[in-house]
């Protein structure tokens, strides 16, 4: 029963909260949809923390796509052996992982120690940073220490297929029963993080202005056109 809760019910609840919560935020709390920057108060530490964290998490995301979404059979079919995969996965996972953890630590210390930043840090921001730190810290530990000392765990046979099975609505929860505890903890905390997105500043990730390079530099809007448009 616990298996069904953690690997079926909990993930779907998290996804539901993520999707419905984001819609709710957009529709009813739209004015708070922003990237809450404190750069105006402090620049030096932000440069280090924010840059390391954001670039790290982008590469970590790409790494997760490669490890979880792309099936093992695909790698084998293009001639990437398990050994070769794990060598690059550990290397390619360690660097972004350390970047994320380092960036988060800098940002957390910055928020705690610089008075003007500290007063403007909300509970949601501490919560997000600490949860991210837990998820990223465990992930980095798994990649660097667990994988090299205990066993190079083949998550592409268990977590990967289970995660993909969620999207076809046939969750194969039994795949998760033999997964090492540390990996399970990483997965559960990650889903908690997903569910937190609509209620924290993490929402700004959905606003990445990818259309910017393709739009005209100058924008004109008519007054009455403005009334009806929400980009």
């Amino acid at each position, binding site marked *: 029963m616990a298996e069904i809760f953690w690997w079926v019910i909990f993930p779907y609840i998290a996804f539901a909260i993520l999707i419905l919560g984001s819609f709710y935020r957009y529709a009813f709390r*739209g*004015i708070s*949809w*922003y*990237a*809450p*920057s*404190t*750069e*105006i*108060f*402090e*620049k030096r530490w*932000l*440069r280090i923390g*924010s*840059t390391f*964290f*954001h*670039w790290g998490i982008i590469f970590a995301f790409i790494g997760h796509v490669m490890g979880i979404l792309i099936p093992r059979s695909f790698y084998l079919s293009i001639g990437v052996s398990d050994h070769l995969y794990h060598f690059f996965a550990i290397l390619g996972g360690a660097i972004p992982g350390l970047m994320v953890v380092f960036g988060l630590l800098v940002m957390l210390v910055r928020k705690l120690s610089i*008075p*003007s930043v500290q*007063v*403007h840090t909300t509970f949601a921001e501490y919560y997000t940073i600490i949860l991210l730190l837990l998820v990223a810290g465990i992930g980095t530990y798994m990649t660097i220490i667990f994988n090299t000392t205990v066993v190079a765990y083949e998550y592409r046979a268990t977590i990967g297929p289970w995660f993909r099975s969620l999207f076809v609505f046939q969750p194969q929860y039994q795949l998760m029963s033999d997964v090492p505890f540390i990996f399970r903890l990483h997965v559960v905390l990650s889903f908690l993080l997903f569910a937190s997105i609509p209620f924290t500043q993490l929402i*700004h990730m959905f*606003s*990445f*202005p*990818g*259309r*910017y*390079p393709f*739009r005209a*530099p*100058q*924008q*004109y*809007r*008519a*007054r*009455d*056109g*403005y*009334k*009806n448009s*929400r*980009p």
Partner: protein
Amino acid sequence: MRIKAQVAMVMHLDKCIGCHTCSVTCKNVWTNRPGMEYVWFNNVETRPGPGYPKEWENTDRYKGGWTLRNGRLHLRAGGPVAKLANIFYNPNMADLSDFYEPWTYDFEHLHKAPSKEHLPVARPKSTITGKYMDKPEWGPNWDDDLAGGSEVVPMDPNVRKLQEHIAMEYEKTFMMYLPRICEHCLNPSCVASCPTGALYKRDEDGIVLVDQEACRGWRFCQNGCPYHKVYYNWNTHKAEKCNFCYPRTEAGLPTICSETCVGRIRYIGVVLYDADRVKKAASVEDPKDLYEAQLSVFLDPQDPEVIERALEAGINRSWIDSAQQSPIYKMAMKWKIALPLHPEYRTLPMVWYVPPLSPIMNHLTNEHDLSADGYIPAVDQMRIPMEYLASILSADDTSVIRRVLLKMAAMRVHMRDKSVGGMDEMKKSKLLQEAGTTVEELEDMARLLAVSKYNERFVIPTGRREMDEDLHYKRGACSIEELAPPEGMVTYPFERGDTP
């Protein structure tokens, strides 16, 4: 031809007394709230000086405005791709230390302090952290009237450019006031800097606004504007800027800064321009040609063809009438006495400045029998170096400044002659010739610059509301109704025709 109308402003610096009334009324109307304490949509700077924020003219540091590379316009801070790569941290943005840490005083302590040997004091308290500050070290107009002279004047980027030495002794130095608001540029670099497209130029009047619902707080507009007139509200995490008091101008009223200007230095009017010419005008090779290039985008509102095309473009009669009587058109385009601020930023700014005259450095010995021509060299010996004015108003082209100053001097000479006499005939003078003007024009200028009344200084057509779809609904409605519909009344957007 794509005709658009633009509301614009002229500030006559000769009349500015630096009283900051404009800043104070603007502050009270627009930026008197948490998150905006450090923000002045309108500020008055003493020049030479660092300005607000400090060194805002230092384009090497803040990288505002446009540059020309291989004949094409580029944002100096980097184009869209470079911006997206830097989106996690904006290296060129000013922080609060470049403005100042806003504070209030602990006034309550004055009447709550117990009886003591010493008088109680109201200690400064930061409005950012809420904590006491030992001593504020910089604040709004900290350098007012050259306060801190020899320390603050070298912080002026224009001074550093000057070849000649600037005397710092108070009896020898110079100063002038520079009131600044958003320029509502024809080629705004803040708009082009916004990754989300939240900043836009209003079609009907050219006012540059920030859509508060669309703004995501990426902050590139803040230093993307070379005038540093877009600000980050740390409370709402969104950009805010001068909105040309559009709720007032839409009702035909001047902006609050203009309305309350004690010296009556401000003029507001409409100009018509061809939006298709803007890009070309902003991309001329030599920065010194930018002023003339900018003038070339404006259209003569008296020209029948222009009127016809403007009507086709949906600009109504009252706007065309206003454009015909526009004080801005007269001063900036016809008489060419008002100049754009820093045209070299290539944004085609729309707040224009009449450069100030200043005392003549050398004593005029035979003033009572001085001919009109005697004033020609006087223009070259004024306290404010022409190079300084040129570095602010004409991309270092002193000939432009000289022509304006000659015209202003000629106007004074002629009007003095008219009222007290004793001058040789102006019509034959070399002064008139060198200033490139006529006696009639000088008299028109004197009228508008000195004695014009409210409705001549502010020729503002009301907002074009006749095209609004929901006037029927709006009639008798309260302005807050969109936010809070009255009880018992169902007002879904589709019911009142807000959605097309």
